[in-house]
């Protein structure tokens, strides 16, 4: 249990997707103009990361990894399909996003209306694929750890986009030099926020 909390907190603050690895920057910059929309996208990311990372974990440990096919019989124990990782992960993500979209549309039209437009965007969000690839690289011990990592990364991304959206709403009233307006100042603010987040470095639970 302690280990799970540790992974969760680490992935929110220390290994933050946006500030430490710059993943999902495209939608982070494009959708952070107002707080409302950024909250919607943030929830969608938490949701999709929380689903795709565990699924890809199962895929990795029972099909793709070196020797993962051993459950089929001893002659499969040496098969290594890891070169298929990218294509399988992205296929799972695209399929999951589509599926989640359809399920939400059936179950909760209100949630669909608020998340709807963002879900297709997420299929090509680097944070999602990045989450799965980091999961693979860090060799989490079991499904629960992988899920904790997925959810934590999503929450970290959510915090980042809501923070920058709030700052961008306020900065509209400031006298920013003309060439720096819009994109330029957003980059610099993100950098400064990243420096702030670096102060969490080294925390162990």
């Amino acid at each position, binding site marked *: 249990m302690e280990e799970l909390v540790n992974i969760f907190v680490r992935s929110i603050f220390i290994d933050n997707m946006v500030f430490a690895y710059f993943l999902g920057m495209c939608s982070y910059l494009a959708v952070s103009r107002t707080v409302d929309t950024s909250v919607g996208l943030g929830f969608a990311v938490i949701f999709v990361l929380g689903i795709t990372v565990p699924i890809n974990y199962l895929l990795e440990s029972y099909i793709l990894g070196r020797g993962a096919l051993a459950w089929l019989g001893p002659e499969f124990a040496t098969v290594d399909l890891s070169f*298929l990782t*990218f294509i399988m992960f992205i296929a799972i993500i695209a399929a999951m996003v589509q599926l989640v979209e359809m399920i939400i549309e059936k179950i909760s039209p209100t949630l669909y209306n608020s998340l709807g437009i963002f879900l297709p965007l997420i299929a*090509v969000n*680097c944070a999602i694929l990045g989450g799965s690839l980091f999961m693979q690289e860090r060799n989490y011990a079991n499904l629960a750890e992988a899920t904790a990592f997925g959810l934590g990364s999503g929450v970290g991304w959510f915090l980042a986009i809501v923070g920058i959206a709030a700052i961008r709403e306020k900065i509209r009233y400031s006298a920013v030099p003309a*060439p720096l307006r*819009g994109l330029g100042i957003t*980059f*610099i603010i993100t*950098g400064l926020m990243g420096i702030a987040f670096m102060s969490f470095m080294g925390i162990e639970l």
Partner: protein
Amino acid sequence: MSKDNNKQREALFSPKNKKLLTNPLGRDNPINVQVLGICSVLAITVQLRTSLVMAISVVAVMGFANVIISLLRKTIPPRIRIIVQLTVIASLVILVDQVLKAYVYDVSRQLSVFVGLIITNCIIMGRLEGFALNNKPWPSFLDGIGNAAGYGWVLLAVGFFRELFGSGTLFGYQVVPDAFYRFGYENNGFMILPPMALITVGIIIWVQRHRDRSLVDIS
């Protein structure tokens, strides 16, 4: 050079085609102006060498992905085009990844997940959607190469400044002379940390928009 040859060359690099190649380097730069594909720009620019390898990989993936999608453009059903595009890109990225692992293993280790993340690089998807789906293979190829080169130079510029000020080296060779260090010059360890990549790109955007006022964000 024979006349025939000249004619063919003109057709291949007509002014319109040339524009496809050069526009993304400046006015239509995918990173500075269209804000696409930032994800991977920043994380791998600590050193010039990794930046260069990444830039070359993206040029390769993007040129060929554009050509393939452009050849298939009449047979892809519109409803499933995103999946088709992702499959084409993912296959090309697998090729690049295997080549990198075979020839420059240490760089491949440093790039870690970011080679895989070329798949979700928004520039590639954006150009496939916006250009290759409605254009012939040759212009699509030029467009792909041009955009990837536009991406590449920003990558190299950021890598140059970060490695120069952060480690005092370029491509791993020491550039800042020892005499400087003896007089108390120190490498700025801050440049190696992730946030400085963002600030460097911010400053590049500032300089570019200062010189070309038409790009200034009015809203």
